[in-house]
């Protein structure tokens, strides 16, 4: 495959969208896609990073932050999203918390060819079962979908997912 045609998603554009939408806290657990994004988030003074040791703890933390007037984002891997099911049901749906879920799509290949990793195979069925709308972002050209997700979450008072379909390759220098 020609490298020029390969999808490229820069971590800077994710940070830009977080700042644009007034995100104050990132409730997160690292995933295989996060790496470079972590370095930028750590350096960004407008963001407070709140690390949780298991992803199911992220929804109630985000709910508490939102109830208290802050703007949280949840940043986890698709495996952690699936682990969080009942927590999402109770703390996010139940309390009507508008939050964007940034979900690293471990196991995703752009051309839909399945890998031995079943994580991405079950991600969309999980989101559909929970009636969580989602937007796939695989390159900088897709990044405007992040704004769609923030606006939709705010309007519907429900979580909306952004599926991060590319691993960051470094900073976009």
């Amino acid at each position, binding site marked *: 495959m020609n490298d020029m045609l390969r999808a490229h998603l820069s971590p800077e554009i994710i940070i830009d969208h977080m700042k644009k939408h007034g995100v104050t*806290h990132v*409730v997160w657990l690292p995933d295989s896609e996060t790496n470079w994004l972590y370095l930028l988030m750590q350096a960004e003074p407008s963001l*407070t990073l*709140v*690390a*949780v*040791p*298991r992803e*199911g*703890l*992220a*929804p*109630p*933390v*985000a*709910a*508490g*932050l*939102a*109830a*208290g*007037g*802050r703007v*949280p984002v949840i940043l986890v891997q698709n495996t952690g999203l699936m682990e969080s099911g*009942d*927590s999402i*049901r*109770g*703390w996010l749906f*139940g*309390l*009507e918390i508008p939050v964007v879920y940034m979900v690293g799509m471990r196991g995703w290949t752009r051309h839909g060819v399945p890998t031995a990793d079943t994580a991405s195979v079950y991600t969309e069925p999980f989101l559909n079962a929970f009636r969580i709308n989602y937007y796939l972002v695989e390159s900088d050209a897709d990044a405007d979908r992040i704004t769609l997700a923030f606006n939709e979450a705010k309007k519907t008072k429900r979580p909306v997912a952004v599926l991060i379909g590319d691993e960051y390759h470094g900073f976009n220098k």
Partner: protein
Amino acid sequence: MIDTAEMLKVFNAHRGDAIVVPGRGGRHWVGISGQPDLDLPMGDPAMGGHAAFAFGLAMAQPQRKVVLFDSEGDLQMGLGILLTIAEQKPANFYHFVLDNECYATTGGQPVPNAKNVDYVMLAKGAGYPRAFAFGELDALTAALPDILGKPGPVFVTMKVHADVENKPITQRTKWRTRSWTQVIGDLQRRLGIAA
């Protein structure tokens, strides 16, 4: 062993203008509190999340005390939150645990290792700077001004009587009079937070 309602009455005298998440003590707290718009009687949105929710509130409102009455069953389900809380060190967070050693709402079955868990050790091991355990109301009453008068995060576990419920859930007396969104809306209005 401590009576939860009596303990909450003692606490109420020291409450000030703290935000209170009453947890499993909610059924008693709603009749004791004189500031319902600073109370978040959540009931049970999803097990294992009360400490995380109250912690999130504390992070969002650092200028105001947030007092949580957690339960040991709920805490066991999300024990890792102790690490997050200890790392962030919210000075306004006061983490009380009502330890009745059982799941009272499902008929009183014991939680895992109910009589042998050292929650103070768990909290201190996670990094809480202060942690206490009480089995008698008199001792808690004497210590409360010091506990609440110094910065958090602080962890206080209390052995309490079990209010076991054996009636089917649909036949139980409903003590919550506000929905979750009403509770949050009332708090946000009191704190001047735009919806």
